[in-house]
């Protein structure tokens, strides 16, 4: 236990240390023991670099392609939902990372309703969590398989969003946090990239699509300032790579072409670093909070209202008003 006095300027009397701030240390230790769970879903047409980006984000082979060695990439006839879990650890912090891939999305000739299997999956995860919660005899820690974040890959056409993109994001921004990214951004020059981003932001606004970080969930001025900066950069133009090259005497992740090497973590080249910081280093907890306190709650309210009108307390189970969830 880290004891000791912290010398604060506005402390009333020097001997008045109670020790309340030591709770931070207790929480930290508990969190480290428990570990974290993060569920990310990647959605986009085949060939946009989704699996590569996941590997790059977590600096290890976490995508479905690394786990299942398929010799040839065949486009599946219907959308499948593939969920791969990994336990990774860094500096004593353990994380159970689940990457949910959706091969076959948007690849068919007729893509009508291709978002339905995905919405069903997300709702199923909420349902599973709800069932666990409603249980009379429930576990101490409910396993959290809810989708915390959905990364949507926009193809780098350079012009505008396609009807499929708009349809998907409109429907899913209501049930899950969506982070749109421009895939394979090494095909756009800087001017084209800025133009494309502006067009995308306009279209998102015009269609009323609220992507993460949502404006209405900003808690205070500080949050708003940070999030505004992020909102001005959305969607991030990313390039993924899991191969290292020698550049200026350093080994960096990148893509080597005949006219130069694209450094993935160089912010002058692409915005991968911003995406990584957002998802992992700064906003991970916020993403999980919004999922559990807003998206999940909306689902729960809807579900329980349905239940009320259909079954009138048949099993005498009173409504639970849970105040806090365990993460």
């Amino acid at each position, binding site marked *: 236990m880290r004891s000791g006095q912290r010398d604060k300027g506005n402390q009333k009397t020097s001997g008045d240390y109670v020790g309340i701030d030591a709770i931070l240390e207790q929480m930290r230790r508990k969190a480290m023991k428990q570990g974290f769970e993060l569920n990310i879903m990647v959605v986009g047409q085949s060939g946009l670099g989704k699996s590569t980006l996941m590997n790059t984000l977590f600096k290890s082979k976490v995508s479905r392609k690394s786990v299942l060695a398929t010799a040839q*990439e065949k*486009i599946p006839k219907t959308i499948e939902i593939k969920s791969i879990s990994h336990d990774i650890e860094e500096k004593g912090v353990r994380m159970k990372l689940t990457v949910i891939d959706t091969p076959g999305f948007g*690849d*068919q000739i007729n893509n009508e309703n291709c978002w339905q299997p995905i919405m069903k999956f997300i709702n199923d995860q909420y349902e599973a969590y709800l069932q666990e919660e409603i249980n009379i005899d429930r576990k101490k820690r409910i396993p959290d398989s809810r989708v915390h974040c959905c990364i949507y890959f926009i193809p780098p056409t*350079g012009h505008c969003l396609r009807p499929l993109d708009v349809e998907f994001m409109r429907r899913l921004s209501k049930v899950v946090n969506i982070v749109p990214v421009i895939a394979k951004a090494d*095909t756009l020059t800087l001017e084209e990239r800025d133009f494309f981003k502006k067009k995308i932001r306009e279209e998102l606004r015009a269609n009323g699509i609220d992507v993460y970080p949502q404006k209405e969930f900003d808690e205070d001025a500080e949050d708003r300032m940070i999030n505004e900066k992020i909102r001005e950069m959305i969607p991030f133009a990313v390039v993924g790579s899991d191969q290292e090259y020698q550049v200026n005497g350093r080994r960096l992740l990148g893509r080597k*072409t005949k006219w130069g090497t694209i450094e993935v973590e160089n912010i002058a*080249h692409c915005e991968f670093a911003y995406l990584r910081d957002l998802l992992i280093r700064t906003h991970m907890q916020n993403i999980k909070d919004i999922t559990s306190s807003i998206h999940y709650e909306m689902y729960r309210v809807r579900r329980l209202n349905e239940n009320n009108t259909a079954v009138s307390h048949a099993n005498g189970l009173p409504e639970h008003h849970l105040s806090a969830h365990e993460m």
Partner: protein
Amino acid sequence: MGQQKNLEGYVGFASLPNQVYRKSVKRGFEFTLMVVGESGLGKSTLINSLFLTDLYSAEYPGPSHRIKKTVQVEQCKVLVKEGGVQLLLTIVDTPGFGDAVDNSNCWQPIIDHIDSKFEDYLNSESRVNRRQMPDSRIHCCLYFIAPSGHGLKPLDIEFMKRLHEKVNVIPLIAKADTLTPEECQLFKKQIMREIQEHKIKIYEFPETDDEEENRLVKKIKDKLPLAVVGSNTIIEVNSKRVRGRQYPWGVAEVENSDHCDFTILRDMLIRTHMQDLKDVTNNVHYENYRSRKLAAVTYNGVDNNRAKGQLSTKSPLAQMEEERREHVTKMKKMEIEMEQVFEMKVKEKVQKLKDSEAELQRRHEQMKKNLEAQHKELEEKRRVFEDERANWETNQRLEQQKMEASRTLEKNKKKGKIF
């Protein structure tokens, strides 16, 4: 077959190619190129780069800048001159292809367009006056494949399967600067494998007798499908002015064969194989269309269609007679039809008028009846009133008599008292 004879002097027909050449130069050339692919794959930029003109510029933005609800087919004609040779270039663009959520049958407008061009040519070939035969048939179709790095999409396969028998299809990998050289190789191999698997017949470069040319052709064949990058902006690289795309990590040069296959495409399309493309279109695709169309017509076996099938064997005069007769019968038929329609309309009108007349008559009767009824009522009332009156009068008279009687009685009483 004639024997080959050795000439004993210089005759001079070796200058025939020159004569053909001069005539062609005077006549000028025509070439129609179609570009197909999803929006945002760089089709307009590539066209601008290929012909070094700004077909699509800020004033006339390319189709990609406008969002389409359905697949359109747009034509754009440009007259290009170089070294005394003029080329009438037509670019057919297909905005909206593959952009919707449901892309079933998005190839249909394109197929219809190609067929309609063939039909135009067939009609102008069969005409009596053939002085002007504009060739607007599609000579080449550049199909843009998105650089996913994996393989062909179902839409790509469907499209190429339906069009490879109608037009020369040349598949290209668009925006190839997004692929590293290794990825590009793998991708190309994968695509060629899938093309063979689905038995798609893309445009084949012809083999020639020339060794040198054959080697070039083989080199091109190894690089299929060509991976292209388009750009019309000029950038300075190592004090050289080149066309390319400026990235923070370097400049992708369009005309550098290390960077992409643009030069190969340009040379093949314009410098070496343009005439061959036109020939294949004329001899293979057009002939296929023609035989299919005419066979379908003759197969119908109906009398008035049989004549059409034997078009090519009739003399022009007879054909003119035929056409005139057809025209006259058509006109007569139309006239009869119109007369019938007219008659029918007249009958209808007469009927309507009759109906309304009957209606009016009925109403008239009705009103008359009403009137009579009212009249009777009033009569009734009057009679009642008269009766009352008569009664009242009689009553009055009686009263009066009574009064008179009583008065006289009074008088008499007065008088009578004297007795």
